[in-house]
């Protein structure tokens, strides 16, 4: 097994640690007359650090354009970052040659839309076996592993030879989960794993994810716009806004007592299934998430922020520890909420 080559029992270190990750995309503007225009960039992820402990779940939440999916793709080296480092169990994986082969089995990903992440020409068993070919060359062993993965995620064995498009959305997402856990990874990155599913099916997948975490001691990095899902699954939460982390800390604290004005707004804006404590219609914030091409100077939330002062448009607030383990990037974090 490849995992032997990693010192997986090293104590006191996070399983995944990301340091100051930056991912900018250059805008290709067709014909450019030399010297006339500066190169322009989409600053999708602008200096993000995070750590995922063993057997724990870290959720990255944010609205569209916050950079959360780019962050996941940059960690996986699907869109290699411009700068910053990613370590898996103390080993650098953000190398120019991509994630080292012997590490890549330890980190797997589940995408939002199983329609586009599963090959329509492959059978269900083929999809799940795909990442196993290199590590398990023996076909009987491999198909035993596939059967085991299918059973674990609750897929009946007779689905093995069907094509993914014969299955329902929830079943397809189970195939994607089975494919992710089949190589026995340590970390699974879940990019909006339930966003395309109906409520009753979402609950099935969320319960499955919790069971798998328990069974295989998995760590999850959950990317989602759905704060209820993040609250349910995660131990720690990071709130992103326009490419930056604005608040992070233990999930209970951040959700129970959000400190950043953006987190506070987000909490109000989330529909809650209780008509006796309505908050959504009380949301005061106007405007939308700014463009990541020319983000506002200073704090990126200041044009929409009810607490904004002159300093907010000049100085970019750093993340500060406002309460134990709770970090907030706001000049006035002590006065909010």
């Amino acid at each position: 097994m490849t995992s032997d080559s990693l010192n997986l029992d090293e104590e006191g270190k996070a399983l995944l640690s990301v340091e100051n990750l930056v991912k900018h995309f250059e805008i290709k503007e067709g014909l450019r007359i030399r010297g006339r225009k500066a190169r322009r960039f989409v600053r999708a992820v602008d200096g993000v650090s995070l750590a995922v402990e063993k057997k724990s779940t870290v959720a990255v939440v944010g609205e569209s354009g916050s950079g959360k999916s780019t962050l996941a793709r940059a960690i996986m080296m699907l869109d290699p970052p411009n700068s910053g480092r990613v370590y898996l169990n103390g080993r650098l994986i953000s190398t120019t040659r991509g994630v080292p082969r012997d590490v890549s089995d330890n980190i797997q990903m589940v995408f939002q839309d199983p329609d586009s992440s599963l090959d329509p020409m492959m059978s269900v068993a083929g999809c799940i076996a795909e990442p196993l070919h290199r590590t398990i060359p023996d076909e009987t062993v491999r198909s035993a592993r596939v059967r085991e993965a299918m059973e674990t995620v609750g897929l009946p064995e007779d689905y093995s030879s069907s094509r993914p498009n014969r299955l329902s959305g929830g079943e397809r997402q189970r195939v994607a989960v089975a494919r992710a856990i089949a190589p026995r990874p340590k970390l699974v990155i879940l990019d909006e794993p339930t966003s395309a599913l109906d409520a009753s099916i979402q609950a099935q997948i969320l319960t499955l994810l919790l069971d798998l975490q328990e069974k295989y001691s998995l760590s999850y990095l959950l990317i989602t716009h759905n704060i209820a899902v993040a609250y349910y699954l995660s131990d720690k939460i990071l709130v992103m806004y326009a490419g930056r982390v604005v608040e992070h800390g233990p999930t209970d604290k951040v959700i129970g007592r959000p400190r950043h004005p953006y987190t506070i707004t987000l909490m109000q804006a989330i529909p809650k299934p209780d008509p006796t404590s309505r908050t959504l219609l009380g949301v005061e914030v106007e405007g939308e998430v700014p463009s990541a091409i020319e983000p506002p100077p200073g704090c990126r939330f200041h044009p929409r922020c009810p607490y904004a002062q002159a300093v907010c448009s000049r100085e970019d607030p750093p993340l500060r520890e406002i309460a134990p383990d709770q970090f907030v990037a706001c000049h006035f974090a002590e006065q909010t909420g």
Partner: protein
Amino acid sequence: MDEVLRVEGLSVEYFSAHRTARAVDGVSLGIPKGKMVVVVGESGCGKSTLGLSIIGLLPRSSKVLGGSVFYQGTDLLSLKEKERRMFRGTEIAMIFQEPLTSLDPVYRVQDQLIEAIQVRESRKKGANTRRMSNEEARQEAVELLKRTRIPDPDHVCMRYPFELSGGMRQRVMIAMVLAERPSLLIADEPTTALDVTTQAQVLKLLKSLMMESGASVMLITHDLAVAAEVADEVVLLYAGNVVEVASVFDLFAHPLHPYTSALLTCIPVGPKSRTRLKPIPGRLPSLGERTVGCKFANRCSHAMDICSRQTPQLMEVAPNHKVACFLYDK
């Protein structure tokens, strides 16, 4: 109570060469004047088809099998297309999840708003007395955009729909609805494609602007939590049937139908340490399957013998609280 719309026993089927699918199966509901009724259901429950059949925009591959749609006393389904068109927009308006498919990509925002305003004017009684000038209409268009709290409405007027963000486009759609002054607005997942903060803004607008003008709103959504935040009344659909109708407070405090209570335990509301979700086993029925009995029976933890033999009817079991389930059959 005074109802602006009453749907009675509506059934709609989609057909192809080989099979049919009954999307709406004997649905009855009423929309009280000046209220927001939220129709909730998972995919395939027929909620969008219901909306389309009320406004009369069903695709050709579908057929209304029976039932009636009374709008202020007139059965819309008995009208000819020409007569029915007169109701569309100025009496009953509809907005959709993706405004880009409803807005014309080759016209500026102001042209589309002006058209809506002039359609309204031309349908007024005695409209031939004076035609509204383009300049007047344009000023009204800017005014309408202002009411939807679009920043810099003069600028937005000159833009094409694709130049606007999703939230802005939905506001333009709402401005068009305001221009037509309908008494009923059907909003089909108007905020599903939007971010949560934008969703909050758009829902707030819908609620405040429609209520101001005394119009009724039928909001279609898959999200029970959205219903909890904005609804006066909730209609819950499952596989083409109405399973429960109640005021929003009754529905969340005392859900009666096993599907309603099961769906409520599917919504994560806290951390895993304090709550355990109870997923509904099985999957949503496919619409092609014609089954006898309650369509939820095979997933229901309270299923009895009768559930697979007979179809439960919607009954009022408490004041203004209706449910279609044999558990309450006295």
